[in-house]
């Protein structure tokens, strides 16, 4: 074989020279884009909708029935407990005033406050053993949403779009549907790209016009005025380019305005709910004052995912679930706003055949204590040592209850799922490897888990 080679020096050297020219590092730094990228192993989930319940929904009143707590109602709790508010704190245990009953074929026990969820219980995995272990909103939000209790890190959605890009180049990859009542307490950190390139930041769809800043024109420009502006600009640019033949950058910029206009049209179309049927409107509760606003955003989330958006966050208003007091009124009201639309989203995705590839998440950054806060106006204080959240679709089991808290619902004691376990599982469902999805940082490779020993929670995988 060696003799068959027979190339002269000239060929060998020119080959080498060409190769060396090619191997030179590019002059320009790497550009990041949102084109679809293959995961490292076959994915179950392709998109995710996170219904984020900021404030800390009371798991002992919604998801995690505690007969022992009811039995010891109004007796003094003498175990170790951490209060956020010492002045109003009370050691008295408080049984849930709401009734629990088995739901669905699976018999998942849920509170009467969640009639909607009850109807889709067989499509849901309920985790009752969540744990972050930091007793305030900010840190626990950071933990649940960006992997560690510190600020400045990339959000889960930024990681997913960094790792996988997005399916639609006409829509933002990562969309955030904010509540008219304000952002979660950590503000824009909830969808910050942290130290990932800024194209992986969440794009906010605002609850008022223009819904997407920069992507949508202000109302007064929308439609004909902007079309006219683009036409006139195109004319200016074409004349300018025609005087400069061969200047391809100029043509590229003309094309980029055309692409931008297409993106506007695509966004407008995706946010327009008028083409959805009356039945769908009703299912999401658009016919009801209590659910209209939130239901619209759930429906928009579905439409976005349907059109290839990778990750959507739907927020509730600032501290919507932070029921330190008046829980008897406030908790049912928060449930009324979200329960029916959230269930509709699961049912709708399923009927469209999208649920198996779309992971739906419902949960917040904490749960609540089994004891009373404020005996004069009963509520519950923070609890990040044991709380509940649910997932549906995207490769998780239906009708599954996972993990346990202690007999009073205070601490997760069985199959504990830490935030980093949740994140490891999430990346796994998307076909990503938590160890290899990294970004170069000054102190070494940065990642979502950041060295925390997260485990994939196999018990919930379908």
């Amino acid at each position: 074989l060696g003799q068959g080679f027979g190339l002269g020096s000239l060929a060998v050297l020119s080959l080498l020279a060409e190769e060396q020219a090619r191997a030179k590092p590019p002059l320009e730094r790497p550009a990041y884009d949102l084109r679809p990228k293959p995961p490292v192993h076959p994915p179950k989930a392709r998109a995710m909708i996170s219904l984020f319940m900021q404030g800390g929904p009371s798991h002992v009143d919604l998801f995690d029935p505690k007969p022992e707590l009811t039995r010891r109602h109004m007796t003094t709790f003498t175990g170790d407990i951490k209060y956020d508010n010492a002045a109003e704190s009370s050691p008295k245990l408080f049984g849930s005033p709401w009734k629990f009953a088995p739901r669905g074929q699976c018999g998942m026990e849920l509170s009467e406050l969640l009639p909607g969820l009850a109807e889709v219980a067989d499509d849901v995995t309920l985790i009752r053993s969540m744990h972050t272990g930091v007793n305030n909103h900010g840190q626990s939000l950071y933990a649940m949403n960006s992997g560690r209790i510190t600020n400045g890190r990339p959000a889960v959605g930024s990681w997913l779009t960094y790792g996988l890009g997005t399916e639609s180049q006409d829509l933002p990859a990562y969309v955030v549907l904010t509540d008219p009542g304000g952002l979660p307490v950590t503000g824009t950190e909830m969808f910050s790209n942290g130290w990932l390139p800024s194209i992986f930041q969440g794009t906010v769809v605002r609850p008022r016009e223009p819904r997407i800043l920069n992507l949508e024109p202000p109302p007064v420009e929308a439609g004909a005025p902007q079309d006219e502006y683009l036409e006139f600009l195109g004319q200016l640019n074409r004349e300018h380019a025609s005087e400069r033949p061969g200047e391809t950058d100029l043509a590229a910029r003309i094309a980029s305005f055309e692409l931008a206009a297409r993106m506007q049209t695509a966004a407008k179309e995706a946010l327009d709910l008028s083409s959805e049927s009356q039945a769908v409107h009703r299912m999401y509760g658009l016919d009801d004052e209590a659910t209209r606003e939130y239901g619209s955003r759930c429906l928009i989330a579905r439409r976005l995912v349907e059109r290839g958006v990778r990750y959507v966050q739907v927020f509730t208003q600032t501290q919507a679930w932070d029921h330190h007091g008046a829980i008897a009124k406030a908790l049912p009201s928060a449930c009324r706003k979200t329960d029916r639309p959230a269930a509709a989203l699961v049912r709708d995705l399923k009927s469209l055949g999208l649920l198996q590839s779309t992971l739906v998440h419902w949960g917040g950054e904490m749960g609540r204590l089994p004891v009373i806060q404020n005996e004069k106006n009963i509520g519950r204080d923070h609890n990040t040592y044991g709380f509940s959240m649910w997932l549906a679709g995207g490769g998780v089991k239906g009708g599954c209850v996972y993990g346990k808290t202690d007999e009073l619902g205070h601490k997760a004691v069985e199959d504990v799922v830490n935030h980093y376990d949740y994140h490891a599982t999430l990346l796994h469902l998307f076909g990503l490897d938590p160890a290899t999805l990294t970004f170069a940082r000054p102190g070494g490779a940065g990642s979502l888990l950041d060295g925390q020993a997260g485990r994939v929670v196999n018990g919930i995988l379908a």
Partner: protein
Amino acid sequence: MIRRLWTCSALVLLAAAAECRPARAADEVRYETHVRPILKAHCFLCHGEEDEHQGNLDLRWVKGMLAGGDSGPVVSPGDPDASLIWQRITAGEMPPGDKKLSNAEAAVIRTWIEQGAGTVRPEPDRLPEGPHWTEEERNYWAFQPVKRPPLPVVRDEGLAANPIDRFILAELEENGSGFSPPAPAETLIRRLSFDLLGLPPSPESVERFCCDPSPAAWSLLVDRLLASPEYGERWARHWLDPAGYADSDGYTEDDPRRPWAFRYRDYVIRSLNADKPFDQFVVEQLAGDELLSPPYAHLDGPSAEILAATGFLRTAPDGTGEGGVDQATARNDVVAETIKIVSTAFLGLTVGCAQCHDHRYDPISQEDYYRLRALFEPALDPNNWKKPAARLVSLWSQQEEEQAAQVDAEIREIEGRRVAELDGIVAEIFEREVAALDLELQGAARFAKATPEADRTPEQQQLLKEYPSLNVDRGSAYLYEQQRLKDFNKKYEDQNAQTKARRPPEQMLACLFETPGQIPPTAVFYRGNPSQPKQEVSPGELGILAGQVAEIPSDDPALPTSGRRLAFARSLTSGRHPLLARVIVNRVWMHHFGKGLVASPGDFGKLGQPPTHPELLDYLADEFVHSGWSLKSLHRLILTSHCWRQSSLRSEERETADPDNRMLGRMNVRRLEAEAIRDAMLDVSGTRCGKMYGPAVGVAPDEVGQIVVGAGMRDGNGIFIGTADGMGGEPFRRSVYVEVRRSMPLGVLEPFDVAATTPNCELRTTSTSPVQSLLLMNGSFVRSQAASLARRAASEAGDDLEGQVERAWRLAFGSRPSEAETAAGAAYVQSQKARYEASTAEKKEHDPTPAERALASYCQALLSSNRFLYVD
């Protein structure tokens, strides 16, 4: 399999190569030129470079290969198949790991062995100790002394306005071509204005220049612009790119601010405006502290300025002031990044890879790297580290210092009173909570509370747990009595504020300096690992430059400090250093033409690009040094050349002969940089605030997370409530004054390829993306600037619509629109006006009228058009 693949591709290339190049006698495979660089890149580390040679094999010379290692000789001259090195390569065994030899590299090795495995020059009997470089490496162009070349002779003498033209034109003529005609006057003045000031020319100055027939008009214009203060702002930003300037530490997520970094930025602006000789500029940045004497207290103005220059060595991302950071790693990173900044900015070399092993391509040994490091370690000493707060030098006078000390004492006294009163309130609240308990528990509760936490009995602990409201303390008192604590806090806050108002404002300088007498030893780190130091090294420059650079003393007895950086800076600026002047004139050239003579301004090594005009590069470098290192003279030389004044229009012939414009037979059309786009919008709209210098204008995320200029105020729930309230003209200052927060690039700059700050930026990209388009179409900054431009045009042109349209065009582009362009613009405004009138969108009281909106829409089209964004 491997072999089949490379045979095929080699044959294809053989055919291609045979077509395009005639065979030459010199095309034999040579060890020194072809083979050794391959082995150096892939094999030397294990087989030669490190103390222990794997398999006792030294591949750094042919004799080593013939002598072989544990498995015998590795090369059989003439017989590759019998050569162990070939067998291991084809078997995929060597080199180990993922990075294998490419097909071409393997073919070179094989051919060389086939041809007898010879060398061009005889090898010595033994290899010298330590790194050694071949003649080829020593002869590399960038390491040769700068030699002023003779001026080329050109046929068309009339086109050779100055020496630059001769170099460019000679090559063009040789290729049967020549210069493009000069650009029209209005193009030239706009080009010049953006080039030197980063701002557009005013319509009046365009008019004046275009009507001035005097032959001196051009050089007078160049001089006038070079003398404007905006020149320093523009060119400072160019220098801040490779310097890695930022107003924050980066490194950690917190990204703490560097509130005093601005003094370095201001130093650069002042130095450039004053045309400070570049050698002095370099010396001050590398060793300003060593030009002064410690302690650096009560500095006068000029001394403070010189010390501020050392901010250059404080730009690297830095996590050492933060908790939760591994200090050893973070400190090492700061030193490494600082070396990267110094080497890319001044040496045009990537020395960073020599941190772990000899550079794979360039003659830079690992020891070289640590010799460079030794220059900086007396100031960046990992074992005596100055955290960010310890790098600040106060600019207070003695009197201000005393006044501050007095205020501080008063504040301590107030704090003492505050705490005493607060403890009284806490005790009162506690008593009330106790009173609510059953009588028999009260005594026990008081006793439990009075017992220090660590000494409490289990019963006491239990009691306090059962009645958690007893746990009132200074921090939680407000939860019990909100109004009282509010009033209490206000009282003391007011007292504090009144007292503090008498404290002179802080005036600090962030800088770099050594602690006299503290000179740490510097060692080579085994494979770059700071915890595995090996032999010690003395400070010095790259070994390959020996003879051209000065020796660096370990400790200059004439100075209180080590004198290492000062000696290094003096050597760099001696006028004999082969790199510095070339690197700097190349950067200047790049900013004038859009592309450097060396297209990789931060890498003059083998992985960078070779110079397109090596003789011109040397001529400029030599001229720069001999003109007294004057940047302004260099600008003048370039700007008065015919070459720079050429038209940027492409022609078919030129495109065929030189599609990349390598020969510079025309000017390049360039897109404005991010800062120039923002600044130009502020300028033409009349909103630009001309204030120079001082603390950075802050940035913050707005309600949707976009980074905007402003304080980014949020309420207690973190809800965004405003941006720029009360900032006056600050938001409208030039971009060079806007805070460079590493984690928060400004939303209107970032999409237009703003400089990287990790750690520095050698070369900016120029991208075109729909994100930019959306920003121009819908972004509030662009829209508000368009509205301002419209108001300005209307107020300057009066009521006549065509006049307004023409005025806006001239403000935006400098030139006058044609009649057709004015007519089209006016027609556009009319039809937009009708559309706004018909609009059903909600109207508010202070909304602009449809006519105002329509003119603003026209202005927005101008500001987002290519005529605005590009310079011919």
